[in-house]
Structure formats: structure tokens, C-alpha cells
């Protein structure tokens, strides 16, 4: 397949691997930020092929994994209401709330629908004028423009039966939170290519400078990842800490201005809780006052869903910050499996625990992964 196979070429991959092996003189710990990158790394076995010295930690960039429990419970409460059609991206359906998930709500009679785009949820609202349609607006900067556009169009069309439950998060504040943690092990980042396609990478320049970490904007195919790792290791070996763009076929420094402007039109920056991590100041997007009428949390009385304490068995928070690897959890693969996840990192195919469970049980369980 053109524009895909070139980036999965095994011969070129071997060349990049050899280059990385030739470059490394001491141990380095890198974090790939995006769950899509984690998935590709484990699917292709890239971590297995790297020199021993290079350790990859899996970052918090999976929207399913970081949406806080309270939001999930609010989604479940909304989806259970008889007059509501609840629309969501597919992989949010299996994220456990306090006592059930959206799949279970659907089985109990709730009208829960998978959509591929928030604009499809808008269509559902147009087709069902007697119902309230709520879209679960989650994700990073990547999904924000589409979700913003849905709200923008809803307001323009005067749609009164459409609203969004917002739990948007932003990458740069999460990176700062990780770097600010006293036990931080991360020495370099592979930044999420698709987030940067929207936002550009100017936001990362002050982070690289302040914390002295290389940040390489990286794509999602095997060669992208290998090249991103190469560039990061090269910077570390040479004592540099710069922002570089490996994913230049997609990402520009300024990003997608139109996408940014619709996000700015509809959303403003707010403090946001991250599942397993806690509140990170200025790390989320919320609706601006002009669009507050489309905020499901204002339209519906959700006072029955209060703050949610979270049990302590799962180490998802530590996994998301790169402090632990999934198989270092006692529950991993025993009490915690994709069918019965203890944490959201086990739910999404992008989640680090699920990726480990699917791709790496042999190595993790029997040989001890690096």
C-alpha cells in the first residue's frame, strides 16, 4: 500500500536499528507520549530490537486511559436516561466506571451509539428531534478540532437537542507534570505526531529548554518510531536538548491554523483531572461561555454523581507517568485483563497495559522485559 509500506520496510528498519546500536554508549530512557505509538512499538516488537541501553516508557497519551472516573460515571448516568441518545467513540464503551461500563448500560436498555466523528452525532441529533443527543467529547488536541466543529455547527444550526460531555486534555501540561515529578526517569520524549499536526510544536520549545530534554515530534509507523528514537538518542549522546521534527511529512512548526482557530473559538483552557494522576492545572479544554448552552454538565442535573474515590490496587497512574511498566503490577494478567480491566490502561487498544497484555505477555511474564 503506497505511503504505508515505505514506512514499514524491514530492510530500512534494520538500517535504522543498526544506526541506533552504533550510536548508543550508555543507558537512556525515552518516553513515547502517544498511545498509538505504544501500540505500534509493541505490535512490531520495536522495543525488543533496540539496544539494551535504550528503555522506552509508555506515556499518558491515550484519551481512554486518562479520562477521570467521575466523567465516566457522568457518562454512564447520562446514557442511562430514557430520553438520551449517548454517542461516543468506540473504545470509550469498555472503560469501567464505578460499577459498570457503557456496554453494560447499552445492554440494560440505554441508547448508546458508536460514532466515527462528532459530526455523525450531530446528524443523530437532527434525525431525532424529540431526543437529547449527548456526545462524549474526549481526547487530546487531535480530536479537539472535530469536537469543536460539532459544537460550532450545532450553535449555528440552533440545535437545541445536542450537547457534549467534555473531558478534553492537552499534552504539554502533562509532559511538564511528568518532568516535574521527583522520581521522573524520562530523559527524552517522542512527541505525538498527530497532536503536533494540529498544534505545531512551538509549545514544546520552552519545555525542552527548561527541563533540558530532547523532544522529537514522531510519527506512528515503524520507521517513524525508529527514526524518532535515533534522533532522540543522538541528541542525548551529543548533550543537546532540542525540539526536532521527524514527522515532517505531516507536521509543520505552526500546525493547522484553521483547526487551532475552531478550537480557540469553542474551547478555553481549564484545569483538568487525569485518571490516576490527579488534577493538572491548565491541562484541559472546556467550553467557552458563548457555548455553555451545549455543555451536558450544565444542561442535565448530574448532582447524583459526586466525587469518586479510586481503589488502590491498580498502578495505572504510575504506568501513565512512566514510573512503572505494566507487568510490574501484581494484578496484571491475573485480576486485571482486557475483559475485566482494573484500570483504563487495560481497556483501550492504545492503553499501555492492554498493549502489553496483547503483545508482550511472554516476554513480560517469563523473561522479564527490560
Amino acid at each position: 500500500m503506497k505511503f504505508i509500506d515505505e514506512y514499514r520496510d524491514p530492510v530500512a528498519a534494520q538500517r535504522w536499528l543498526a544506526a541506533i546500536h552504533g550510536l548508543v554508549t550508555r543507558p537512556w530512557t525515552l518516553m513515547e507520549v502517544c498511545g498509538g505509538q505504544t501500540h505500534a512499538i509493541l505490535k512490531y516488537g520495536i522495543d525488543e530490537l533496540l539496544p539494551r541501553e535504550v528503555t522506552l516508557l509508555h506515556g499518558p497519551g491515550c484519551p481512554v486511559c486518562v479520562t477521570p472516573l467521575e466523567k465516566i460515571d457522568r457518562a454512564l448516568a447520562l446514557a442511562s436516561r430514557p430520553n438520551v441518545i449517548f454517542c461516543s467513540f468506540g473504545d470509550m464503551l469498555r472503560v469501567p466506571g464505578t460499577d459498570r461500563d457503557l456496554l453494560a448500560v447499552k445492554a440494560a436498555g440505554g441508547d448508546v451509539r458508536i460514532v466515527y466523528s462528532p459530526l455523525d452525532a450531530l446528524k443523530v441529533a437532527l434525525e431525532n428531534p424529540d431526543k437529547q443527543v449527548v456526545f462524549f467529547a474526549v481526547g487530546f488536541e487531535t480530536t479537539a478540532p472535530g469536537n469543536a466543529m460539532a459544537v460550532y455547527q450545532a450553535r449555528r444550526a440552533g440545535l437545541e437537542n445536542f450537547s457534549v460531555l467534555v473531558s478534553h486534555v492537552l499534552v504539554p501540561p502533562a509532559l511538564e507534570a511528568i518532568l516535574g515529578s521527583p522520581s521522573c526517569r524520562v530523559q527524552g520524549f517522542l512527541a505525538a505526531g498527530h497532536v503536533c499536526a494540529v498544534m505545531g510544536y512551538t509549545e514544546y520549545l520552552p519545555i525542552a529548554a527548561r527541563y533540558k530534554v530532547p523532544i522529537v515530534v514522531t510519527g506512528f509507523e515503524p520507521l517513524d518510531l525508529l527514526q524518532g528514537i535515533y534522533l532522540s538518542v543522538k541528541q542525548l549522546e551529543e548533550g543537546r536538548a532540542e525540539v526536532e521534527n521527524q514527522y515532517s511529512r505531516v507536521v509543520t512548526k505552526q500546525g493547522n491554523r484553521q483547526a487551532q482557530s475552531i478550537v480557540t473559538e469553542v474551547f478555553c483552557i481549564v484545569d483538568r483531572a487525569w485518571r490516576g494522576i490527579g488534577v493538572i492545572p491548565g491541562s484541559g479544554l472546556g467550553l467557552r461561555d458563548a457555548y455553555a448552552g451545549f455543555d451536558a454538565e450544565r444542561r442535565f442535573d448530574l448532582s447524583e454523581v459526586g466525587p469518586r474515590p479510586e481503589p488502590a490496587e491498580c498502578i495505572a497512574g504510575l504506568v501513565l507517568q512512566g514510573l512503572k511498566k505494566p507487568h510490574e503490577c501484581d494484578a496484571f494478567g491475573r485480576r486485571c485483563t482486557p475483559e475485566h480491566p482494573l484500570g483504563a490502561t487495560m481497556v483501550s487498544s492504545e492503553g499501555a497495559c492492554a498493549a502489553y497484555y496483547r503483545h508482550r505477555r511472554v516476554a513480560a511474564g517469563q523473561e522479564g522485559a527490560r
Partner: protein
Amino acid sequence: MSQAKDFAPSCPAPIAQYPQVLLAHGGGGRLMHQLIERVFLSAFSNPLLDTGHDAAVLEVGAARIAFTTDSYVVRPLFFPGGTIGTLAVNGTVNDLAMAGARPLALSAGFIIEEGLAVETLQRVVASMQAAAVEAGVAIVTGDTKVVDRGKGDGVFINTAGVGVVEHGLRIAPASVRAGDAVILSGDIGRHGMAIMAVREGLQFESAIESDCAPLSAPVLDLVSSGVDVHCLRDITRGGLASALNEIAGSAKVGMTIDERPVPVREDVRGACEILGFDPMYVANEGRFIVFAPEHQADRVVEVLRRHPVSGDACVIGRLTLERPGLVVVRSILGATRVLDMLSGEQLPRIC
């Protein structure tokens, strides 16, 4: 930003078990197997059922009779490459074929939703008859029920089939051995993506057609060719990955699969890339895998390639003594990973 502390780990309470049946319980993955084991196998357990094969083989006097059943629920009823009717015939014919049986006769039960156009039903039935003729089998008994509007997707079909086993091989999961080769009969993922493309309105230069087809001809050729066939499995819901895991799990063997030779058509790969799906988990309706001694692998491929429906047959792996129950796949870069069974259905990813 203020200095972050080392956060306490936090996580939601587990969902131990679902008290209601989810759609995911029908996805061909781990949840479905749990449901079968907990509800059906525990209630019905007997030696024939417990073999875990696609069809039961009954000894009737000197004859060995294969018996199987399957129900068909698909939306839309008509799709490129097939209909619910052709699925209902070929699916059951193929379950018989996986026991190495020659299909003799089928039953057909129709659960029809009030309001379905008779013309639509006639088109479904005509496609069934055509598929039956192609597969060399007759529909000899049947049943009709009608349910209220809104209680069915137009029509649901159940078929049962009987066939005769005319060879002495014990084709079953329990017969596979470490050292066996795994042979795949052709390209994967077509049926699932044909349905998804229609449902999701994906437009391609030419429509992806379902691989829906009867598999009796290559299988009967294979069992009469002198190959010591240990097991056969059609790869349907849950895809190649689930079928491999089912055999590895029930036979307690390990498997090493090479993903490089596994054929996937370009249009199917493209559709999978767009939706974030892995073709290894996408449904098929005319593909199967063969387990046979490694030294006979080339012969299996040669026999299968004589038939258009299995013209792209190839060896994709072998069974091992290591890691019983696990399927390990070698990636295109040469690294290995576990090819697990999915929980339910593949869900489209956020980004």
C-alpha cells in the same frame, strides 16, 4: 506550575462479571468463549460437545455422520459478494467440511420481522438455493416464524446440516501435534471489511467483496489425497487470530505464526488502516486453516491451490511444545509478540 508530588496510584473498581449479555458476547472473542463455557458447556457437557469442534461426528452403525448448526444475523441483508442466505448455506456447509464431511442436507429456519417485503425474502431464498446448488447440498426441511416489527433485523436464519464422513481420519483439535504445520487457505479479512464498508459508507475504487464460499471441494480433495489432516478450522468471526487461539487453547499447544506470508488484499488493508482494525481479527466466510504434519505441508498447499477458493494457500506457521496455549507471531521486522484473542469485537479507535 507547582512541583508535582509522586501521585498515589488510583483506579476504578473492577467489573467482575457482566450480569447481562452484551453484544460483545457475540463477537467471537474471549467474552463469547466465557459465555459458552459458563452457560452452555457447563449445562450440556458430553463427550461429543466437549471436543470443541465445528461439527459433532456421530457414529451410526458403520457410518460416521457429521452434524452442525449455525444462526445468521447480518445487517445489511445484501452485501457485495453475498447475502444472509448465501452465508446461511455456506456457513453450515463449511462447519461440516471442517469435520472432513461431505454435506448431505440442510434445514432452514426463518425468523422474519413483521413488515419485511416478500420480494426481499424471495431474493434471500433464491440466493440460498443458488448457494445450495453450488455446494451440492439440498435444503430438505424448514421452519417459519414471524416476530413483531422492531424485534428482528428483517430476517434471521438458522440452518443445521448433516454430512457423511467417508475417511478414517480423526479431524479434531485434540489431534494436532507439536511439529504440525499451519496452512492458511487464502487472503483474510474480506467478509468483515465488505460488511463494514457498506455499513459505514466507505467508498473504494471497487467494492470489497465478501469471500463467502463453500469449502467442501478443497477439503474433500485434501482428505482423499493421502494427507494426514490433523485438524481443520474455518476462520469466521474473530478472524484468523481467534481461530488460532481456539486451537492452541483447546489442544494445549504453542504456535509460532509468521505474519509476512499471510495474504491480505490491498483494498482490505486500506479499509483496515482507515478504521484502525487489524486484519488478523477481521471476519471471513470462505477461509480455513489446516493442521498437518510439517513434511506434508507442501502437499497440502499443492492440493488446496488446485481450487479457486483456496488458490492462495500458504504455510503460515508451526506448532511447538513451548508456551502451550499461546500464539506467538513474528512481525515484519522479525520481532515476536503474542497474538491474543480479542475480548469482544474490534472497536474503532479514537485517533
